[in-house]
């Protein structure tokens, strides 16, 4: 598969001032992020609140300006566009190719605009279509996401959460994008609606030949949807691997912790969990020295407290992990015994 997007050495630092004359504090929300997105895949970015997954998504589309690093987009083989170096004006054409879907469809849709205008807006801004052509594209996009034709003149408040999310998806798709960044796109929805939207995202990906960056905290959904997974903790990538490899045998202790904490809808597998991880995620402002996870890691040794592990390939495979002991630790995955049995219903 060809590379569609490449992120190199990306860092993002926020500065905060406490009070009018207070001292300035800098928070490194992302440090040295490196990843590639291949055309046609679904890459999931997972982690808990504050790990930097949303910031990363926003830095890619430059809704936030990265402090350092490069984001390179490859619209066609042999043509590399360094998004992070472009001026805002030069960036505009590429914004048609890279679109976002947000978590809360209530706050991401303008309540004073009708559905038709909400979906037509991106076309108008990018002068991509007008008149009958615009109308045709809006109607056909809404049809594809399952919004009926007679709803075009309604306002967002007249729709349920699931339908609003469909409108949000239509806004992203109407410009015929190549890459869609979905930030917790199904997290606010009830399970039955969530399943509808997940199926829709899957169908749209096949129909439009899309590539997804799927930002989520829900590992169950990620296992279902993603081809590869990036696990983040405190602004770092701690592990990246093909989905099945990651869930079968994680290589970073934090990944194991996440998988172990995940509630699985099968009471017969209740006993798999020994004990929840201790402690809380440290405050970004005083990130531990050495490995960012060492304060909560049950395998931590002296080396982890002083030396920060680099993200490196494990056993020459596709899996990369940032742990000094990634090869030797015997970590537990989330799947049942192979071949998986015990599915009920």
């Amino acid at each position, binding site marked *: 598969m060809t590379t569609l997007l490449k992120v190199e050495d990306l860092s993002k630092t926020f500065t905060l001032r406490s009070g009018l004359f207070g001292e300035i504090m800098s928070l490194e929300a992302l440090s040295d992020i490196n990843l590639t997105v291949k055309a046609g895949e679904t890459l999931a970015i997972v982690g808990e609140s504050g790990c930097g997954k949303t910031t990363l998504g926003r830095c890619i589309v430059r809704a936030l300006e990265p402090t350092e690093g490069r984001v390179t987009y490859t619209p066609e083989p042999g043509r590399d566009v360094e998004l992070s170096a472009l001026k805002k004006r030069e960036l505009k054409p590429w914004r048609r190719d890279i679109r976002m879907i947000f978590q809360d469809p209530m706050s991401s849709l303008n309540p004073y605009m009708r559905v038709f205008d909400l979906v037509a807006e991106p076309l108008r801004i990018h002068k991509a279509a007008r008149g009958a052509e615009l109308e045709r594209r809006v109607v056909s996009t809404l049809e594809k996401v399952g919004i009926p034709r007679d709803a075009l003149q309604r306002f967002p408040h007249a729709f349920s959460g699931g339908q609003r999310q469909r409108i949000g998806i239509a806004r992203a798709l109407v410009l015929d994008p190549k890459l869609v960044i979905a930030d917790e796109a199904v997290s606010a929805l009830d*399970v039955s609606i969530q399943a509808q939207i997940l199926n829709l995202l899957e169908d749209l990906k096949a129909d439009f030949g899309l590539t997804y960056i799927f930002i989520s905290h829900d590992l169950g959904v990620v296992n279902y949807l993603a081809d590869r997974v990036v696990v983040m903790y405190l602004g770092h990538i701690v592990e990246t691997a093909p989905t099945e490899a990651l869930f079968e045998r994680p290589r970073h202790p934090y990944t194991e912790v996440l998988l172990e904490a995940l*509630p699985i*809808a099968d009471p017969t597998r209740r006993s798999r969990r020994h004990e929840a991880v201790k402690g*809380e995620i440290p405050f970004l402002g005083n990130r531990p020295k050495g490995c960012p996870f060492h304060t909560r890691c049950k395998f931590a040794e002296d080396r982890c407290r002083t030396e920060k592990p680099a993200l490196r390939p494990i056993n020459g495979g596709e899996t990369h992990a940032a742990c000094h002991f990634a090869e030797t630790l015997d970590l537990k995955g989330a799947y049942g015994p192979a071949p998986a049995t015990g599915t009920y219903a």
Partner: protein
Amino acid sequence: MTPLTPMDANETLLRMENVNIVFSSPDEADIEAVRQVDFTLTRGKTLALVGESGCGKSVTARAILRLLDKNARIDHGRILFSADGGEPTDIAALGSDSKAMRSIRGNRISMIFQEPMSSLSPVHTIGDQIDEMIMLHDDVEQKSARERTVELLDQVGIPGPRQRADSYPFQLSGGLRQRAMIAMALACKPDLLIADEPTTALDVTTQAQILDLLRALQAEYGMAMLFITHDLGVVAEIADEVAVMYLGDVVEQGNVFDVFRAPQHPYTRALMSSIPRMTRRAQRERLNPIQGNVPSPRNRPEGCAFTTRCPHAFAPCSSVHPGRTPAGEGHWARCHLLTHEDAPRVEGILQPGVPAIEGDRA
């Protein structure tokens, strides 16, 4: 703190009988938000009430504490609560602000909520708030109340409890706030703890910690727990029994292992096929979501509430409200498929004239 004396594990603590809750408004017809809810809470056991938004699970829980809004009332039914093994009290018949009710609420039955930030006072320290709770119900001095508070905070796993008692809620992380809230709920050693989506706003590792904590506290205090959630994963982790609600009806109830192994109501089955399974690629199955949306309670079908979205609906479903049909030991569902000879055949559902799977039908 000394744990309560061990109780008989099978002792019934609270029984909901045929409770329905009606919302009224001056210019519209009444809406029946919850109808014919029955369930039993047992000491030391957890019942999970599961369903999607608007199904009536929180309203049901609030009715137990008589914390319903002014425009809502318990229309009929009884909520029988027997704290000390004596004559049960019918909570539904008490005045919501009566002395009897106030001696139950927060004392014998307490509740924790999804968002601790909005249910703790932002201008009082957590220590003061828990002290107040203890003094209100136990008639002790502030000083000994504070000792209890520190003990409680320690027990729920808040590090440095004596210092942390002087923190305001905003100074604590989400996980610690939820722990403080649990400490407050446990201050009077309640017989019943109602937990309304207590982990929904938390990260998954924090959620695991809080679930472990609740389990440990339940083992120690022997309290019953009513756990409200929309997450089937959490149900599988914590519940002994599960009741599935849809649009104001409890459509299925039973032991958590039975309900997950052989769900009998089409809605329960649909919910379970809506969540992605933790399986390898080779076993991956496309999700099979329920079509359409939950109708508003105003348009609820006369018969089974799920009729409009049920893939197996047949003649009686839209007009006749199905009764409770046993599907095993302590396991029942409200579905006509289970009782009608001429119902369409559905694999996995115990139907008349279909040989039962071994061990399924008691």
